[in-house]
């Protein structure tokens, strides 16, 4: 079960890299980032942790690793971010919401739509947290360098 999840999330993220035309030598990293984010999300949800928290932490990890890869391989961060975020997008839930909207079951549909918005917000929050942490770390490192010299 877990192995199937690992393999499929890796392939799916790398395939998304192909759809977005990322450079060939970054495809592996794209798949890796996607796999890591998805597995974290999957494990957290399996252990009955709120899906919003799970999405938030997965998005955070994805963004942190993307930043690391972007620095290491000197490429724009978007390349890794996108393929990592894609599996976290609440596709299934928005589909469910849409289905209930079409079936005139607005009561359930609005509830689901609200949840979709929360999850989308969680993704954005995860990205923001990672960005903030990145800036803090760079500032801290710069200060350390200045103090040393």
């Amino acid at each position, binding site marked *: 079960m877990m192995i199937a999840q690992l393999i499929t*999330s890796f392939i799916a993220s790398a395939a998304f890299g192909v759809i977005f035309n990322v450079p060939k030598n970054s495809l592996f990293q794209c798949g890796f980032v996607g796999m890591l984010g998805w597995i974290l999300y999957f494990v957290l949800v399996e252990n009955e942790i709120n899906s919003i928290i799970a999405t938030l932490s997965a998005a955070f990890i994805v963004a942190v690793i993307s930043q690391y890869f972007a620095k290491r391989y000197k*490429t*724009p961060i978007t390349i890794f971010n996108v393929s990592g975020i894609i599996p976290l997008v609440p*596709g299934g839930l928005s589909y469910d919401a849409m289905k209930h909207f079409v079936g005139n079951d607005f009561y359930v549909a609005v509830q689901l739509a609200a949840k979709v918005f929360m999850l989308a917000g969680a993704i954005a929050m995860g990205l923001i947290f990672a960005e903030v942490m990145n800036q803090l770390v760079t500032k801290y490192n710069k200060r350390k360098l200045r103090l040393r010299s």
Partner: protein
Amino acid sequence: MDDRLPYNEIIDVCLLAGKIMLQNGAETSRVEDTMVRIAAAFGCGESHSFSTPTGIIFSLDGMHPASKLIRVSQRSTDLHKVTLVNSISRSISSKEMTPEEAYLRLKQIEKAGMGYPMWVQVFAAFIASGCFLIMFQGQWNDFIWSCIAGGMGFTCLLYLHWLLEVRFFAEFIASLVVGLVAMFFVQIGVGSHLDTIIIGAVMPLVPGLLITNAARDLIAGHLVSGLSKGADAGLTALAIGAGISAAFVFL
């Protein structure tokens, strides 16, 4: 500032670099940052760039006319080009390139075709659909049907995108096709779970790049482009939802 600087060439290089990046899916903040950096590397310390998803205004201080505007109407996704422009900007920053060389290289990048051939992209969408089906707790015996539905949907998207320039409509039809194909497989009895098949097959159409870029732009304080990219992503999501719903209505 030095009067002998080739202002016109510098501004052209900056605008072309910005245009290529903006057209191919870079964040607005990165575009502005790159343009200002290139100008600085060529010796123009004071430059201002304002870019939105649909156009760039760029100006160098100490030059007449002071600014230039470029309109960006065609947008697609080719992160390979963004990477290439990024590396050119790096080598300009380390003073390895003159404006003329940079301009030539950028022109080459602009003219180059997409990174991967069409069939590879369709194949990627094909495989991705199946993998997403498994990730969303689908059955392995639905794998191939989700692949086919997703591949057909994505092919439709590419074809319609090329045929007509209304993105909303292309996405609508593509997701309609996904829905209809998935329903067809369930109707003839080979596919078992309609919901998971559709969810998996629709994933290649999801505007993931727009979502992440909108979030990153908003964080960077580029409110105009962040909001408009968010609206763009919302519109795409609406098109996908409408397409799937239309497929349900047909049934």
